[in-house]
């Protein structure tokens, strides 16, 4: 062993770090992923941005229309602003309701309530389901005529149209989505809480800190890495929300989301690829906002470390 390390170290101090062959190998091995990345991620992204300034139906000629699509989008496309609003609502609801609730459950379970394993597995159960399936289940519960909720409430004469009423349905869908998200967050925090050093808590208790104080001053700050992950997951879940509303009513009538508008316009018979791309660019801009913020934070953290 020592021999080998010595030889290696010796090589590293030599005049040439890499042989030609090494360079070729590195070039190929780095080049292929970069090419794939360019072709599959950056290519389509840039193409979308380009296409958003055209009117193209996927068949005929590509016609340059400048910012027409964006103008139509902002002023003349009724589902656009509801979609933006719903996306924001989604982010706020998951971030401010579902995530803290997941954290609360994690803390309770971590403190060792009775039957904690049962709760843990029950709450985690929905996480293994696809959101599309959660959507189908939501329909069984919330359907106006045949849903379980109206049957339980017993309002047969004047049933509430949980999924058809555009003022109501987004909340029902958010509850269904949060049902899954809570379990996800809980399991992440449970793992985090297990790794918090018990002596820290003891020290805090000796110093006279109460339960709540200990949690907010001591435990939560030590969970920072988990917090970051949970935050990222919450943002991703909120932005990529699609399947549940698509399963319920194709994202119409109160359930509009940007991702649905992109799909609706681009996929389909007479695709409005130019227009759909413009919606996609809006979604991309929003996502980039979050991605850049996250990266800046991470890089700063790294420098400090």
């Amino acid at each position: 062993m020592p021999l080998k390390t010595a030889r290696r170290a010796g090589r590293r101090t030599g005049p040439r770090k890499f042989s030609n062959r090494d360079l070729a190998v590195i070039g190929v091995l780095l080049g292929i992923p970069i090419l794939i990345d360019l072709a599959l991620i950056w290519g389509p992204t840039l193409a979308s941005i380009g296409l958003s300034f055209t009117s193209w139906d996927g068949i005929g000629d590509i016609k340059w229309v400048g910012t027409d699509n964006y103008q139509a989008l902002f002023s003349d496309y009724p589902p656009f602003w509801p979609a933006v609003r719903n996306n924001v609502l989604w982010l706020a609801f998951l971030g401010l309701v579902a995530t803290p609730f997941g954290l609360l459950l994690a803390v309770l379970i971590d403190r060792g309530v009775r039957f904690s394993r049962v709760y843990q597995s029950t709450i985690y159960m929905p996480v293994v389901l696809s959101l599309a399936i959660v959507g189908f289940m939501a329909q069984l519960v919330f359907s106006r005529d045949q849903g379980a909720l109206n049957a339980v409430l017993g309002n047969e004469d004047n049933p509430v149209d949980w999924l058809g009423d555009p003022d109501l349905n987004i909340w029902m869908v958010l509850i269904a989505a949060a049902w899954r998200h809570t379990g996800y967050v809980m399991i992440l925090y449970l793992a985090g809480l297990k790794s918090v050093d018990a002596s820290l808590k003891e020290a805090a208790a000796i110093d006279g800190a109460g339960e709540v104080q200990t949690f907010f001053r001591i435990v939560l700050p030590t969970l920072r890495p988990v917090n970051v992950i949970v935050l990222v997951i919450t943002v991703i879940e909120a932005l990529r929300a699609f399947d549940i509303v698509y399963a319920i009513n194709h994202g119409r009538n109160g359930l509009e989301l940007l991702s649905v508008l992109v799909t609706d316009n681009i996929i389909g018979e007479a695709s409005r690829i130019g227009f759909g791309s413009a919606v996609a660019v809006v979604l991309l801009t929003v996502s980039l906002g979050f991605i850049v913020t996250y990266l800046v934070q991470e890089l700063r953290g790294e420098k400090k470390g």
Partner: protein
Amino acid sequence: MAQSSSEHRISRRALLRGTAAGAGAVALPTLLTACGGPGKEVKIGSNASDAVPRKAFAEVFKAYEKKSGKDVKVNTVDHESFQENINRYLKGTPDDVFMWFAGYRMQFFAQQGLLADISDLWDGFDGFSGALKKQSTGEDGKQYFVPYYYYPWAVFYRKSVFEQRGYEIPKTFDEYRALAKRMDKDGLDAFAFGDKDGWPAMGTFDYLNMRANGYDFHISLMSGKESWTDPKVKNVFDLWRGLMPYHQKGANGRTWQEAAQSLAQKKSGMAVFGLPHPGQQFSDADRSDLDFFPFPEIDSGYGQDAVEAPIDGFLLSKKSKKQKEAKELLKYLATPAAEEKYLMRDPNNVAVHKEASTGSYNALQKKAAELVSGAKQISQFMDRDTRPDFASQVMIRAIQQFINKPDDIDGLTKDIESQKKTIFAAS
């Protein structure tokens, strides 16, 4: 351990080799399909993915193979995916012959130069009405479509409910409204109504428009030539608004299947549907109790002339290298025998050929055939009579909004008109 560095090199090499093999594996299938030269058979792209039509079509094609001694290869794709991918399908390597719809939805692709002209075949056809020919003709006056079957839309009801309560079939809109009012008093929802999927309510709009303003105005409106803020259009929504209190509430949260069930359960009195829709939700025992009447007259100048009857059929792709063989197949599909063969297995549609035997028809099919053969004009349903992007992106939403708030007709029509301008200007 001494070998470790050479091991490294080997693993590097192995990795490279592995990468190369992987790249090959990705490229290989493409090469294979490129090598697969034209076979002997005619290929058919089918959207008949449901069990009943799929089997029925399989028998038709088998019969053709037997008769002609030629091979037919059917590529069946899920119905919805077929529709969603039709653009890419036609631009890529489409099958020689494929299933599609008549009217604007066909003309759109004819205009793009993706369909082969089959006017020469049509010269030899004799069993199709003028209305059918019109629906098979592109905007350039050439024929592109072989009609196969259709299903009319009408107002469906249960005979027993009408008998029991002494309701009479309404002929005019006033009678229709009066009947709805009476049903309401009797504790029924007059109209079973579900528009969660967005399209079922379009049938009601189409009929109201054709009865109030005539077929020509309807078609012209659908092709973007009329303004949606025209008082004639507002009148259509206004007539509909008058009926809204008698429609099942919460339609945007209800599927058409659930609506049809309420008709079957005698909770609703009537429903505007296409022929295949209500029957599927009725039990076998109840099916003979199902009946329909044509949508009532609004303006006596137009009477009940127009019937909404979407036609399904076949198209020949321009890219096909087997124009001759494909045309032979189309010629066979345009015969009464081919249609009969299909309808033996699928009783939810009606043959288009005049000479197709009606022997196997049930009472509803017979009545449907009469309804259409007596029609002066045939429309194709909103999402087939107008640009698909306009129907799906603008009208679905607009009608759902109207169902939520039937009172803001001015705002609604203004909204539709401005979006229509953008969409129709795009190409």
